């Protein structure tokens, strides 16, 4: 499903494409999903779950909140860079199919982020709106796709780290973490 959407967009994807790609029969497809949309929703849900797991295992409880957020954001961007088709579907196609899909990511991500800065079960004060940061990251990736630079997703690492840290860590801390992320990126993770 994800592969076909990345290749030819959701609108142009047919059940035939999906079953051919997955090497299953039509009957098997309909045993699992009611229709194309149900399959797409399940695929998006699965991908979000995978990315959450990637983020959660990227840091340890001993990390300072800013460091933990930087590591989680880095791991997610690296995972997306390894599977560009996924990034494309999550930021582009998913919006065309369901404009509120972003709400699903947020519900999956913001509480985890907030928890990093929570001490003694108190809610941290927000410096900037985490919901807005999410939209900004999405637009950033969307533009990378639109300009054909999906293979250079790691370029965006400093900005994505900034957006991840700034809501609860504040602007200055976010800049510091973005610098750290920029250094590790220029150490040659990916050729410019």
């Amino acid at each position: 499903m994800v592969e076909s959407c990345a290749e030819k967009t959701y609108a142009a994807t047919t059940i035939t494409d999906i079953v051919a790609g997955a090497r299953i029969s039509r009957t098997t497809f309909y045993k699992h999903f009611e229709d194309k949309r149900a399959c797409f929703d399940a695929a998006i849900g699965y991908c979000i779950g995978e990315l959450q797991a990637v983020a959660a295992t990227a840091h340890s409880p001993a990390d300072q909140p800013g460091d933990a957020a930087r590591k989680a954001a880095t791991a997610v961007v690296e995972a997306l860079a390894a599977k560009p088709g996924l990034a494309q579907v999550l930021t582009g196609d998913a919006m065309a199919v369901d404009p509120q899909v972003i709400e699903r990511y947020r519900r999956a991500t913001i509480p985890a982020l907030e928890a990093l800065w929570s001490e003694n079960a108190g809610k941290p004060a927000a410096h900037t709106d985490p919901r807005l940061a999410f939209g900004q990251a999405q637009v950033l990736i969307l533009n990378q796709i639109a300009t054909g630079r999906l293979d250079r997703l790691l370029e965006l690492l400093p900005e994505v780290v900034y957006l991840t840290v700034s809501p609860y860590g504040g602007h200055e801390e976010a800049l510091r973490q973005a610098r750290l992320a920029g250094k590790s990126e220029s150490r040659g993770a990916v050729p410019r």
Partner: protein
Amino acid sequence: MTDNPEDLRQWRLPRGRHGLPRELVERSQRERLLAAVVRATVANGYESTTVADILGEAGVGRESFYELFDDKLDCMLAAHKILADDLEARVRPTYLEEGPWPERVRRSLGATLEWFAADPEAARFFLVELSTVGPAFRATFKAEYARFTKLLDDGLGEDGPNPELTRATDLSVGAIMARIYEEVVLGRATELPRLLPELTYGFLVPFVGEEVARGERERAAAG
């Protein structure tokens, strides 16, 4: 032939008028079709909209349509471009006025929110329907995104900030797009101007930090 965005928004010519000079007839047909594609796609979605729907909405014949446009997508993208031109024409002068940069940002953000709030149908067409056209979406997104990041850069001026982040401009343009998009999807376009204080703040922070942004947010809230 020039396109007047006001006509695109308000065009309601009586159908079947005759005796006008050819150029005027063509121009009015084009404008009616552009207005019709906005209304039809917002009402039915891009995929379900047919050329016949657009013709019915515009009161224009099929032959005239194909003299002016290649197909439904061509017509849709032409309408999209006119709206983008109009938005830029509305915001650019405000942004490039004299004055401190954060203040100019606040004023032009205000103009942007007013523009989207003035015509919720056009706002929905402009931001939401475009993403459903398939591969052509990416090219249009790229062009419009580049247009508005360039506008932002053009107005940074000598007194403008020098942000540490390479893509501070992208973060700020992204903040406006993402936030307006969300309100438009939820059918709350008319309430957009209320967002001015928080959006001014979110826009400014990556450039100037929290303190300066807070000051401008207060000025936005004071009106």
